[in-house]
């Protein structure tokens, strides 16, 4: 790993200043960024740790639903979101292993937008709002393809606000070696309709399965999915699964999520 200058601001304002500099990059839990830096795939000149910013940590109920600070580790979400949004807490509790959950954060995961990550599906299925140091971004505008988001230079996530659904569930088919989702589906039922977000399937990263949303909005039951087909032509193909295999998983996992919600 190349060396860098390490800074650890204690407010969002200070972090904004530090990240405006050339070659500066945000560090949260480091569970993705450190391995990337070790491989020299990233070599920031300055690393700005967001772990010392109290206003970016914690879980609380507010106008936008459940507000979670971007620097909140998965283990804290698993515990503190449980009473308000159990499906989201369960998702956090299924990420990686306990040591990863004690360190990895909501903001780091959603900023990274790994095509097999769990949180992006919760953000998209909840129609959450991604709050940054500069603006608020609707989930539907935020995710722009694998490892690509609406975040601009110097912009970082400060919190995410999740509208709380009537019912929801996330079902993940584990990839046992990486502990990521081979494929995962988040289903959330709101008063104005159902949202279904799929991770670990498409080469474009997380996406909404709109046909299932329409069917489930009319009839929230696994049976409502039976006539639907999943277009897997642009799905991920790797040694763990073919596009057709993932396409089938999407349907199976959506049905399981509906049953579990």
């Amino acid at each position, binding site marked *: 790993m190349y060396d860098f200058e*390490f800074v650890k601001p204690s407010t969002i304002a200070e972090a904004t200043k530090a990240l405006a500099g050339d070659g500066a990059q945000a560090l949260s839990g480091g569970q993705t960024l450190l*391995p990337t830096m*070790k491989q020299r795939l990233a070599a920031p000149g300055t690393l700005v740790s967001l772990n010392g910013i109290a206003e970016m940590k914690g879980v609380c109920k507010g106008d936008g639903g459940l507000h979670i600070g971007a620097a909140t580790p998965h283990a804290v979400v698993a515990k503190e979101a449980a009473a308000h949004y159990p499906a989201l807490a369960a998702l956090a509790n299924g990420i990686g292993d*306990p*040591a990863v959950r004690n*360190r990895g954060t909501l903001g780091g995961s959603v900023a990274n937008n790994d095509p097999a990550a769990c949180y992006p599906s919760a953000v998209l299925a909840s129609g959450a709002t991604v709050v940054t140091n500069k603006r608020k971004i609707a989930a539907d505008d935020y995710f722009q393809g694998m490892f690509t988001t609406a975040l601009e230079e110097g912009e970082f996530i400060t919190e995410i606000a999740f509208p709380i659904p009537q019912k929801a569930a996330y079902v993940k088919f584990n990839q046992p070696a990486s502990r990521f989702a081979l494929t995962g589906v988040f289903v959330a039922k709101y008063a104005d309709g159902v949202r279904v977000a799929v991770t670990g399937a498409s080469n474009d990263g997380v996406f909404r399965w709109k046909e299932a949303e329409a069917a489930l909005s009319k009839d929230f039951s696994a049976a409502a999915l039976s006539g639907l087909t999943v277009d897997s032509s642009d799905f991920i193909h790797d040694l763990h699964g073919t596009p057709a295999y993932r396409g089938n998983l999407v349907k199976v996992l959506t049905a399981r999520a509906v049953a579990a919600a």
Partner: protein
Amino acid sequence: MTKVTMVVNGKSVSAETEGRTLLSGYLREGLGLTGTHVGCDTSQCGACVVHVNGKAVKSCTIFAQDVAGAEVRTIEGMANADGSLGVVQQAFQDHHGLQCGFCTPGMVMSSAALLAENPKPTEAEVRHYLEGNICRCTGYHNIVKAVLAASGQDIAAIPAE
């Protein structure tokens, strides 16, 4: 170079670090606490697990400067005050929870973190919690037995599988 101070195993310590110095390197090279093992260096194997402010974390995937001032506990801090093995360590010895011993420091630290959160875990909970700790020798059964024994539960009924 920046001097980083932490409380490690109850003692205030400091060592010089670069920005890129990992917590595992700070402990091993900076302080000579080589009980913390580095197996994969890619946050997969769990050999390097230590406690930071009471939570199990992978020390190969944390920068030392990011945890300046923290309370850190390593395998060297797991023995009793008189130098005898701590409860979890003793259970690993009694139940043959190790063979080569490479994974053991991380296993013991993860197990201790589990027992602090959940003093009487079920067998399934132990297996689930140790998901991030890889052992190439034991086949895990004796590790699971050791953790259950350390929790004070009767392990006679657990089959060797």
